[in-house]
């Protein structure tokens, strides 16, 4: 039988039971819609995270202190802190693949200023830090290279800190006290918002690395070194170069393990992307279950339909239809049901995604691949769940089918 006739017959018998066909495809509509919307939300979240990481400087390379081992027991990252300001200077001097280098010294302390006090994280950094992290002041100025050399008692406040200590006024020029040392506020940083992991990036005070190290932290070890690779593509090569420089600086013999770790933002990006990709997959998989349930709905209705139309099948067989003709006919009906459901589901999903994106403000990205995949999958659901009822119809004996009451 020709395809045109098959489709005509299928559509005719489906429209004969409009309500039933509608409810049956509703299962597929919801299934396909859920898959597409869930994946769109997942991919939206993925894009958000990527954008956030990129906003921290996509070509950033970080150096952490390594972990120490004794008798096979790891003491954890940072347990063997051997990064010093000298290491940073060595990189500045010799590295060719990085454009900017900054140290970071982290200290937690209470800040007293205005009429209030605030407990926050202090980051002792170098002026290049602005460039590396793409993070500049909105008010006042960042401190300078001279301030670093002079261990100047100047501070730049994050938005959260500024808002808490000096609500409603510009803190530039104000004085604050940290561990009984007076500091002058020289600038306020632009707001960066939440990090990808939920912490408030604006809850920070920055000051020259030397000031933080010698006046607040004490000792000679710093927390991290940041550098900017010349490009994202050069990140990996820059990592290798920095590793080589630091190994030499730390007098490590070949074969000895690194006592530091080098990570590029590109790697973080990869990890975060991988994480959200898994999440997207999970969301999609959960939604796919509803598509399978929709398929079972089709199978159920097709079984009912085969029983109801036993006489019709008998007539068709009596006038010369083969079992395969009947099989294809019922299969076509199931596939049409599923594909109509799939198409409506896609339209619905596009509508919901646009609504989420424009009205709710969630990022939802519909990928054509998923739409195509969902459409094909709904067709496959039709074939898979339509096959059993169709085969049941095809195996009927014409005489029995004709006598069926």
């Amino acid at each position, binding site marked *: *039988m*020709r395809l045109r*006739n098959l489709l005509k017959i299928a559509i005719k018998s489906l429209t*004969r039971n409009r309500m039933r066909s509608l409810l049956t495809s509703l299962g597929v509509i919801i299934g396909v819609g859920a898959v597409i919307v869930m994946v769109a939300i997942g991919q939206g979240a993925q894009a958000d995270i990527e954008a956030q990481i990129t906003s921290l400087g996509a070509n950033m390379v970080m150096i952490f202190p390594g972990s120490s081992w004794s008798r096979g027991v790891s003491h954890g990252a940072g347990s063997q802190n051997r990064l010093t300001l000298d290491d940073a200077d060595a990189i500045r001097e010799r590295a060719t693949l990085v454009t900017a280098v900054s140290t970071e010294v982290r200290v937690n302390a209470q800040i007293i200023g205005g009429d209030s006090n605030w407990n926050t994280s202090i980051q002792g950094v170098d002026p290049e830090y602005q460039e590396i992290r793409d993070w500049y002041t909105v008010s006042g100025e960042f401190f300078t290279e001279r301030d670093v050399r002079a261990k100047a008692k100047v501070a730049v406040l994050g938005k959260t800190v500024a808002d808490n200590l000096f609500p409603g006024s510009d803190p530039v020029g104000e004085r604050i006290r940290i561990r009984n040392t007076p500091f002058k506020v020289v600038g306020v940083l632009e707001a960066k918002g939440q990090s990808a992991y939920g912490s408030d990036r604006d809850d920070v005070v920055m000051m020259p690395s030397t000031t933080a190290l010698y006046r607040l932290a004490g000792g000679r070890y710093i927390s991290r070194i940041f550098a900017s690779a010349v490009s994202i593509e050069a990140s990996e090569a820059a990592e290798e170069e920095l590793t080589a420089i630091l190994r030499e600086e730390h007098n490590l013999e070949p074969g000895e393990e690194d006592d530091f770790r080098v990570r590029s933002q590109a790697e973080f990006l990869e990890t975060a992307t991988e994480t959200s990709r898994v999440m997207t997959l999970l969301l999609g998989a959960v939604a796919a279950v509803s598509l399978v349930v929709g398929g079972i709905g089709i199978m159920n209705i097709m079984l009912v339909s085969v029983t109801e139309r036993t*006489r*019709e099948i*008998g*007539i*068709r*067989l*009596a*006038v*010369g*239809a*083969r*079992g*395969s*003709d009947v099989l294809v006919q019922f299969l076509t009906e199931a596939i049409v049901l599923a594909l109509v459901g799939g198409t409506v589901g896609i339209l619905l999903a596009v509508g919901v995604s646009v609504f989420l994106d424009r009205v709710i403000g969630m990022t939802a990205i519909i990928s054509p691949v998923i739409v195509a995949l969902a459409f094909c999958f709904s067709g496959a659901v039709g074939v898979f769940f339509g096959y059993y009822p169709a085969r049941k119809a095809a195996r009927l004996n*014409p*005489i029995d089918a*004709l006598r069926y009451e």
Partner: protein
Amino acid sequence: MSAVIEASGISKIYQMGEVEVHALRGVDLTVEDGEFISIMGASGSGKSTLMNVLGCLDHPTSGEYLLNGRDVSELNPNEFAEVRNTRIGFVFQVFNLLPRTTALDNVELPLLYDRTRRIKDPRAEAVAALERVGLADRITHEPNQLSGGERQRVAIARALVNRPSIILADEPTGNLDSVMSLEIMELFGELNAQGITIIIVTHEHDIAEATGRIIEMKDGAIIRDVVNVGGQIE
């Protein structure tokens, strides 16, 4: 004259639980091309079973059945379907038209399943078949808009449409009043005059009288087989 049907020793045994029902017990039947035959008999005499076997709707348990000289008792289901489609037209007592489907679509149905020839315009052939049974003005009517006689005419058109050599009708007038029955028998007479072999099953003697040969069955066997010329049994 050549034989359209040569059946010998046809038997059909149904297994009803523990009991074996012998619906046909070694029927021998030869039908020449162009004959008009009626098969009579009481309910359960096996005439419908014989029709189903002759119509390739059912396999005999044993026996040899040659249709147009070809042995069809051993065919597989697809070959069987092809025989039903192209060589036999079957007419039922209860019409067996597709409900909510126009007369034209009903008549076109066998053509859609024909794999033996490429049919250029199945609709035109279906219209021609409907014209042949006198329903040219009813082609877009659905079965529930047609009288019983008209429905049976649609069913006959469907049986005719793929040019079979033989039409089998199982009590075609069983659900019709006497006027309609007469019309249907006249139609069969016309078709027979055009050269189509026709076998009908009937209960009614006056229906059987309109045919050229009357076969009577009882308990799954033929007990009488006579030639009927103008109501005079020879």
